[in-house]
């Protein structure tokens, strides 16, 4: 017996080496066979925590790509919204046009394109955005631009092959037809060039009940914007006594300071609507030359 202890104490390093080897090989082969690791439950808790921390950092670097992916997906979903479709009055209709229909016989009025803002200012009087899509990708003048949360941002004013210039809502010449969500009254959203956080909503008559916090949407009569895009919420109500109209201060829904991903919305009826509009004007303004 004494010899055994002597042997063990003499070779204790080698014996502990063997023990550890056998232990690790047992771990390894039992895992390879059953995929049940020893102490894996505890170890998983620890490695999981550390991995979570690491993942936060890793995710940060993938954020841009992830954001773009999400944005593209949102864009495809926006294209499915019912407000993009209108119903034709079939009893009065004689010709089919080539615009795709959905299954319920609605035809598509708005189509969406994803884009990334490559340049943006907010501190000029005339602020423009530049986006990385152009005529080659199907962008046309007068298309509306929405932020990634669906809030109104601006209108395309100029396109090149691969880029477009967007007149931001924060442009002193910008004028967007807007409506109050609560009452549905139409007004015009403009910008006075002062504070990039606020727009002005004009031409709401004082007969309408207006409260602070009311939502202001793009109106159904806008040629560019699809109806119901959030423009902002009313921040302050003032009455302009000379005109009898409200002068409403609207807090913009889109944060123009950090716009990254946007949707460009094209009204497929835009040409027809504007042509009709112009022809009407021509008829009304030159009534004597064109006999009715």
């Amino acid at each position: 017996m004494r010899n055994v202890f002597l042997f063990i104490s003499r070779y204790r390093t080698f014996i502990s080496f063997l023990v550890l080897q056998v232990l690790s090989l047992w771990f390894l082969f039992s895992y390879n066979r059953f995929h049940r690791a020893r102490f894996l439950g505890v170890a998983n808790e620890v490695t999981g925590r550390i991995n979570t921390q690491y993942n936060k950092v890793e995710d940060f670097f993938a954020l841009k790509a992830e954001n773009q992916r999400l944005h593209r997906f949102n864009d495809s979903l926006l294209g499915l919204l019912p407000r993009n479709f209108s119903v034709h009055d079939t009893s009065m209709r004689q010709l089919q046009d080539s615009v795709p229909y959905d299954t319920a016989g609605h035809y598509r009025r708005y189509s969406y394109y994803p884009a990334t803002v490559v340049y943006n200012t907010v501190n000029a009087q005339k602020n423009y955005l530049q986006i990385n899509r152009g005529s080659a990708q199907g962008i046309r003048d007068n298309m509306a631009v929405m932020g990634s949360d669906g809030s109104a941002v601006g209108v395309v004013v100029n396109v090149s092959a691969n880029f477009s210039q967007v007149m931001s809502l924060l442009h002193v010449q910008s004028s967007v037809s807007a409506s109050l969500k609560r009452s549905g009254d139409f007004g015009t959203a403009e910008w006075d060039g002062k504070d990039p956080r606020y727009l002005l909503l004009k031409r709401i008559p004082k007969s309408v009940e207006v409260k602070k916090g009311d939502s202001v949407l793009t109106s159904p009569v806008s040629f560019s914007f699809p109806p119901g895009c959030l423009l902002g919420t009313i921040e302050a109500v003032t009455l302009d006594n000379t005109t009898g109209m409200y002068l409403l201060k609207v807090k913009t829904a889109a944060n123009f300071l950090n716009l990254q991903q946007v949707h460009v919305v094209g009204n497929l009826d835009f040409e027809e609507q504007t042509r009709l509009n112009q022809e009407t004007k021509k008829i009304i303004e030159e009534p004597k030359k064109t006999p009715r």
Partner: protein
Amino acid sequence: MSDFLRNSIRFCLFILVQVYVLNKIPHLHRFITPYIYYLFILWLPFTVSRQWLLVIGFITGLTLDYFTMTPGLHAAACTLIAYVRPFIIGVLTPKDNTEFNYREPSARAMQWTPYAVYVLVLTILHHGYLVFLEWLDVGSFLGFLVKLLATTGISLLLVFTVELLFSRKMKFRTNTA
């Protein structure tokens, strides 16, 4: 800084670099897996007893194993090099202890050639055992050899890069301390 604290920090750094850098970088080739964490065992102080070396080696390997979900694989390889380490050091360092009073293995403590041999032998042992164990599970013998050579090559490159980048401040063990 005490040896314990120093080596604890080093342990964490090596494991984190191995798990989150070397295991994450896009693979150069299916045969090449860069390893650096075992340098922790190579850098342990001379004063650590052989028993403790084995335990530390086992824990180091097992820690990495639980990150890579291969329980036992690296632990076995690390235990092996922790066991062999004292023999190699005994062969390669001068017997005359009056001249030899560095704290832990390094190029300056052991001279470049013996240190290189020390690293090379333990690297081949570590990778050889590791790849051998993987080969038992899946793989072919030729793949085993190629993988051993490629992995050893890339790991040696890493080890010597680290060695040159982080020149450890070698403090003498003195009688006064």
